[in-house]
């Protein structure tokens, strides 16, 4: 779940501004093919630098977990770097870096992504390394144990250095009662300490199938070469039975929920989350525009009112983002000195109610469109931005091409739609309020 303004929606704006975009990537520039085992490749040739990337997206994240194995998707991500059949422990990184390449990976609630960046002359090495680990990951017991320590440190440092993260995790645990979005991607500490190699093995067999992945390559490559290498290194990997879909649906919330987190913080932190539909919903576009109007920039409603004019908060904003299942639209704020948290909480509701009652202005709508266009250009300035756009769209919207069909949906959003959607979702019975402060009142 990417809790931020959708980059994909910025792409929807693309066609609203066709005249200036003639030099930019078009749908037909993106080529694709599917291997016999079901693994899909997207290729965008861009020969302006002798570098390229490979982004592999697996459709597995913490939403595929259950209590006992929480955090396993992320742990698995780490284990993908710890040795396979042809290339043993450490060799994946040693060989890639010696070839002038680098890599990283990330896990979210919905997906696990592996990213390689390299001089295009090293492309075959990258295919060899990636093919080896997908075909024959070793999961050696010794490596499992040392990686467990790494993750435990990651867990500790995350909470030690971020109030935001601690509060968000507590909030989600209350906002969701049934759906796996209720735990964080890093997982529960006790699960981190108790996963078994057999859990990992099972995870690999279920989710790390070529037919559960897509690959995106952008840069100094040709379709022909990519295809030949994909057939050589990925096609021999057998397809597997598709994973069982996540069928848990979060039941409708029946009243406001509140959670307190006691922590010795300088001033109270607050988060307010409302359940909203998934990225595939028709309402998602309007919600995304609303999120920008509320919190993108210093002239946005939340910042300009709460931080600047009323001086009730030192920081404030709102976020939402792509998700496969229905997710949250979350407001957050940190109290200014000596401001009671109830005052700040009520001021946030005032801003929400203003939208519900009076709606938004033409100028606010236009501002969001201009901003999205700018962000879109920023994303398209880099081959990494391009690769991530293509992959994200394919995963969260089911087809990368939809991005070129979307402008109509975007244009259709009116001030009335935004007002109505605010009224529909920003209801007291649909919200969860999280407050972090020094001591809980008796």
């Amino acid at each position: 779940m990417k809790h931020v303004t959708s980059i994909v929606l910025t792409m929807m704006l693309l066609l609203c501004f066709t005249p200036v975009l003639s030099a930019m990537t078009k749908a037909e520039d993106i080529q694709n093919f599917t291997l016999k085992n079901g693994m899909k490749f997207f290729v965008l040739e861009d020969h302006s630098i002798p570098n390229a990337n490979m982004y592999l997206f697996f459709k597995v994240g913490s939403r595929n977990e259950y209590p006992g194995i929480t955090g396993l998707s992320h742990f698995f991500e780490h284990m993908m770097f710890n040795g396979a059949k042809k290339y043993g422990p450490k060799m994946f990184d040693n060989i890639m870096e010696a070839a002038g390449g680098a890599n990283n990976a990330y896990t979210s609630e919905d997906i696990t992504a592996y990213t390689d960046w390299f001089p295009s002359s090293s492309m075959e090495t990258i295919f060899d390394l990636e093919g080896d680990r997908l075909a024959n990951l070793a999961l050696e017991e010794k490596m499992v144990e040392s990686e467990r320590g790494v993750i435990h440190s990651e867990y500790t440092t995350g909470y030690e250095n971020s109030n935001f993260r601690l509060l968000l995790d507590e909030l989600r645990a209350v906002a969701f009662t049934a759906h796996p979005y209720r735990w964080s991607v890093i997982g529960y500490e006790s699960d981190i300490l108790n996963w078994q190699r057999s859990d990992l093995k099972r995870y690999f067999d279920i989710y790390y199938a070529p037919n559960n992945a897509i690959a995106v390559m952008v840069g100094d490559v040709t379709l022909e070469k990519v295809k030949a290498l994909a057939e050589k290194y990925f096609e021999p990997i057998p397809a597997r039975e598709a994973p069982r879909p996540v069928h848990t649906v979060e039941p409708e919330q029946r009243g406001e929920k509140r959670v307190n987190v006691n922590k010795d913080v300088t001033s109270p932190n607050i988060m307010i989350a409302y359940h909203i539909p998934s990225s595939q919903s028709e309402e998602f576009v309007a919600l995304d525009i609303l999120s920008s109007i509320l919190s993108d920039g210093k002239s946005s409603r939340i910042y300009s009112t709460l931080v600047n004019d009323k001086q009730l908060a030192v920081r404030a904003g709102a976020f939402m983002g792509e998700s496969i299942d229905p997710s949250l639209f979350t407001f957050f704020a940190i109290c200014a000195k000596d401001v009671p948290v109830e005052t700040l909480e009520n001021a946030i509701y005032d801003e929400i109610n203003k939208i519900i009652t009076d709606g938004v202005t033409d100028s606010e709508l236009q501002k969001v469109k201009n901003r999205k266009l700018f962000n879109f250009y920023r994303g398209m300035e880099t081959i990494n931005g391009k690769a991530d756009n293509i992959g994200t769209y394919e995963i969260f919207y089911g087809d990368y091409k939809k991005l070129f069909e979307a402008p109509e949906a975007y244009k259709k959003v009116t001030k009335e739609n935004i007002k109505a959607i605010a009224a529909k979702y920003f209801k007291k019975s649909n919200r969860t309020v999280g407050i972090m402060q020094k001591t809980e009142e008796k």
Partner: protein
Amino acid sequence: MKTKKFTPAVLIMTFLFIGWAISPLMAENPTFKLPKYEKFTLKNGLTVYLMEQHEVPLITVSALFPAGADKDGDRFGLASLTADSLFFGSKNFSKKQIEENLEFLGASYSSGASKETARVSMSFVNTDTDKIFPIIKDIIQTPTFDQSEFEKHKKRTLLELEQDKEQPAGVIGYYFGKFLFGNHPYGNPETGIPSTVEKITASDLKTFYDAYYRPEQSCIAVVGDFQAPRMKEKIKKLFEDWKAQGKPVTPETKSIPSYDKSRILLVDKKDATETQFIIGTFGIPRNNPDYVSIQVINTILGGRFTSWLNDALRVNAGLTYGAGSGFDALKSTGTFTINSYTRTEFTVKAIDMALDVLNRLHTTGIDEATLSSAKNYIKGMYPPRYETAGSLANLLTSMFFYNFDESFINNFQQNVDSMSIEKTKEIIAKYFPKDKLTFVLIGKASEILEQVKKYGELTEKDLKTEGF
């Protein structure tokens, strides 16, 4: 420093936007060359750089002023607050108008001060140039430092300074800077500290601005999708009436301290579950002729995932999520640091291990295979570093301030290739420390104090005590 990482939700977006833009010269020539640019000086002394980049219809403007925290004197935070306040109103625009106008056009903008410089940056769609430029001109030439806006900002800053301590990883660098540089201006914490920030007024900002924001020692880089001749005319018109004031007064230079033994600062965080640590000492100035060679060695020590530090502390021992090292090069010197963190009970184990790795650099040295891998890595990663209009604008302004030219970029690969094993030995002996180290730890003192005394002369602080 790369890590195989779990990305906290909010950071994922940042991740999506990391990347590289396109430098058209690369297609013909596999050796990375800095794209063509033009440099000229206006009559008032302002240096201007123009570089065309046509990949996307955006323009980035980046201005640099010699107005960093090293000019703070004893009023820590002055440079930083001055830079922040440039957007708080100007001759022709109020703070609200600046924000609303820029944000309506979708532009991104920022200002801030670091150790030696202050920067203003703006990126926008090229068709908005004529709407954006009057604002850029105004905030740079005629900021008003509106008192009521500044007071609001100061109030927020005072609270944020306290809150910063709730993120030890974010403040350990300030402790290290202060502990290493002492009263030398490089030790000034850029953000300021509550007792100094409290006393700063809007008129102090104006005085600071008048002293250090002058055309003669400043520069502006414009990079992006425009035609240089027309842009040159626009920039001339925009800045030609900015009055020359004479070169800024430079505060008297203080000498950099030196230490004849190792020292350790232990900052107590009573509820800590982990220890953050830095081990380091003085480094090199930015114009050091061995800059590139030092980067190659540091790549091996702590500059990539397979670096010796990360390999030992993370991959082999599972003590941490990440360990690395780096040189931060300033105008007259710099710092060398090893950074990591670990759960409280592993503090000594991790620090001992980091010291062993550093020692290995001197005793075992670097073999041919490792050197060759590091060369490939640093060359492979090089072009992407200077590919967005923003990173190029930043590079041009740095060339101005640190007084180096494009030969640094254009000869980079050649300089990397020319490294021999013999040269690595020289570089290591000359620039990588082995003793008289400065340690800074933030962690739970009651559990680690006795064990960490062995690292050097001990100083203790409480994280909650004001300042660094």
